[in-house]
């Protein structure tokens, strides 16, 4: 039916204790009954590859369609990396050509949201659009220079599209989710490639906006991009709010992820947990406040962790103080350490030797 392109391995960033960023878009696709999904990746794709080791977590292991991963390949007539989003699609154009589905959904893997793509497609058809762009009013006006901003007319046709403007003319941002007819996409991508243009937003959306009917589909629901440290931190912290947990964890449809077969989390004497999320496989002996702790973390005796994100498989020795930090996964923090982000979030990468008893 539709397919997907993804840009970078930010998609593999862990979110909300148990998930990775790409789980949200993949689950949305699965829940919207999109059966054929192509993932385009090149940067640091190790953990993404591990995460995508099987398509069964998202129920893509069907006879129709499936999950396809495209990394850059060297062939007789091509030996370059993906030089941009449009180029990644161009280099794998046969995937699109050989598909029979009429529409393509293009989305990135670095956003946290729930969406029924069928509604988007209905809107796209109703508006007789060539391309439909999902957009949303920005929550934070100061961060507009990291997004594409759009200006729509009354009919929601996009009149202006600026990529990462220094001074934005509109506070409506593009969510980086598009729907387009497959044949039209192939045509536009081929045209771009002929002119050695490689970026989907700059070279397709912006250049074609006056000759193609490009419409905006405005959403009001929760949507966050996690590509900056602050956004990543804040998005994880959002899950401490009951309404966000209810929206993602309890309301149908669910978000799926790779199952890791970890034991339940364990709380020994001395554990004091306040307003925090703790994932499975974790053992807690110390105090955790206003934090998100990912899987398989060990928190030693008399530790104090506040306003922090502890990623997967971190070992924290006794008497350690961690405040306003993001601790990188697989880290080992020695006993009696002290880390505090003074102005802003501090990223802690500690690869000490770990001695397992």
């Amino acid at each position: 039916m539709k397919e997907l392109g993804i840009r970078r391995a930010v998609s593999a960033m862990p979110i909300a204790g148990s998930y990775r960023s790409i789980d949200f878009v993949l689950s949305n696709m699965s829940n919207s009954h999109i059966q054929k999904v192509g993932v385009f990746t090149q940067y640091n794709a190790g953990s993404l590859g591990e995460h995508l080791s099987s398509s069964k977590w998202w129920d893509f292991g069907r006879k129709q369609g499936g999950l396809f991963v495209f990394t850059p390949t060297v062939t007789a007539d091509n030996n370059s990396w993906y030089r941009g989003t449009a180029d990644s699609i161009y280099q794998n154009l046969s995937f699109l050509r050989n598909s029979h589905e009429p529409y393509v959904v293009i989305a990135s893997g670095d956003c946290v949201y729930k969406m029924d793509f069928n509604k988007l497609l209905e809107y796209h058809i109703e508006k007789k659009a060539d391309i439909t762009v999902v957009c949303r009013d920005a929550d934070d006006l100061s961060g507009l220079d990291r997004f594409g901003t759009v200006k729509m007319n009354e009919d929601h046709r996009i009149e202006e599209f600026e990529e990462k403007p220094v001074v934005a003319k509109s506070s409506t941002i593009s969510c980086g989710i598009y729907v387009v007819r497959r044949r039209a996409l192939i045509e536009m991508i081929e045209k771009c490639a002929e002119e050695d243009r490689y970026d989907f937003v700059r070279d397709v959306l912006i250049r074609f906006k006056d000759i193609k009917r490009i419409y905006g589909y405005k959403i009001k629901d929760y949507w966050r991009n996690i590509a900056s440290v602050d956004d990543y931190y804040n998005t994880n912290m959002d899950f401490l709010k009951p309404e966000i947990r209810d929206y993602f964890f309890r309301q149908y449809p669910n978000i799926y992820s790779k199952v890791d077969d970890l034991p339940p989390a364990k709380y020994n004497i001395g554990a004091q947990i306040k307003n925090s999320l703790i994932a499975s496989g974790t053992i807690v002996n110390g105090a955790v406040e206003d934090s998100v702790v990912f899987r398989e973390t060990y928190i030693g005796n008399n530790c104090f962790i506040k306003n922090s994100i502890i990623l997967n498989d971190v070992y924290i020795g006794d008497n350690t103080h961690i405040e306003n930090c993001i601790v990188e996964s697989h880290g080992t923090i020695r006993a009696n350490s002290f880390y505090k982000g003074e102005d802003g979030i501090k990223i802690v990468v500690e690869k000490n030797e770990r001695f397992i008893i």
Partner: protein
Amino acid sequence: MIKKEMIAMLLAGGQGSRLGVLTSKMAKPAVSFGGKYRIIDFPLSNCINSGIDTVGVLTQYQPLRLNTHIGIGIPWDLDRNVGGVTVLPPYEKSENSEWYTGTANAIYQNIDYMETYNPDYVLILSGDHIYKMDYEVMLDFHKANNAEVTIAVMPVPMEEAKRFGIMITDDKGQITEFEEKPEHPRSNLASMGIYIFNWKTLKDALVTMADQPALDFGKHVIPHCHKQGSPLFAYEFNGYWKDVGTLESYWQANMELIDIVPEFNLYEEYWKIYTKSDTLPPQYFSTDSVVERSIIGEGSEIFGKVYNSVIGCGVTVEKDAVIRDSIIMNGTTVGSGTEIYKAIVAENVEIGAGSKLGVGDEAPNETDPKIYNAGLVTIGEKSYIPDGITIGKNSVVFGKTEAADYDNGYLASGKTLVKAGDEQ
């Protein structure tokens, strides 16, 4: 031709009646254990970790939960092109259709299944024990001794020995005699109900003994093999092995998991226990929550206080609720201000606000004192307990109860309140 060196047959059809209301709607192997697991996860995980990829699961009593849990075996990596897990219920035959009448009879009725895989050895397991065991090591022992039957045994305290089938062995481990629940045991090696048979020996015995009513391994097949002169060996196992056949032992085994370094350690990377996980999200603890010496499953939200307890997945413990020394299974909600002491609360139960469970003096249970004892309160699955109810010890509640079912909001110790509705 398909060829598997050893296949496993897992007996999962028993009710486990001593677990009371926990098994009134599901077979014992499907009962939750340790927060997120079910009892059958342990033998199934042992199989795949031991390199056995062909497992027949024999079901009979209330198999729905078991069937949905096992599915096609994906969580245990038992979804295979050849082999994998197969659920084997009793089936109708052109003449003399019958239920599985005994452990060995169930295996006998599935000779065709075993024959398909052309095995050299067949491993017989039961689905109601908690342990980690490498069956491959046991098979090596079996081969090294040229045994035809190997029985896994474990040393138990002499005074406990009269509750088990006891093996008497010579110094090489060969079984010379055995006694079923002897008054005066002469050995402390108790059978764990785990057998490796040479396929030919097993098949001969089953076919020869086919007419024996309620054909049982311990009572009939093993004595028969012994009489035929087959070499029987006892494989001594010294790891953790727990029979969770009674509510007290079930509760005890769960509580052992919360020790600082439990004897049965689920946190080892080396021998993972797999289960079907329906819930993925992390757990949430509110600012007022307290949690100590507990294990808690995915997606649970704790606003109250939890001490010394095993909490399943997707459980909600509301504000000011207190849970102590208890097992709360998946999907249960505990209302605000409710206090629960030493209770086993099954799946998807709803307990209202301001109730108290497990308080007052002990009194023996009026209907089944052999099942409901040790001061435990047991609540069956999908039960509902309204606000402001007080429930005593050694009591049991099952069904959607209303305030009118209680004597002024009170259920005294030792009382049984089972409300049969359409669902039961």
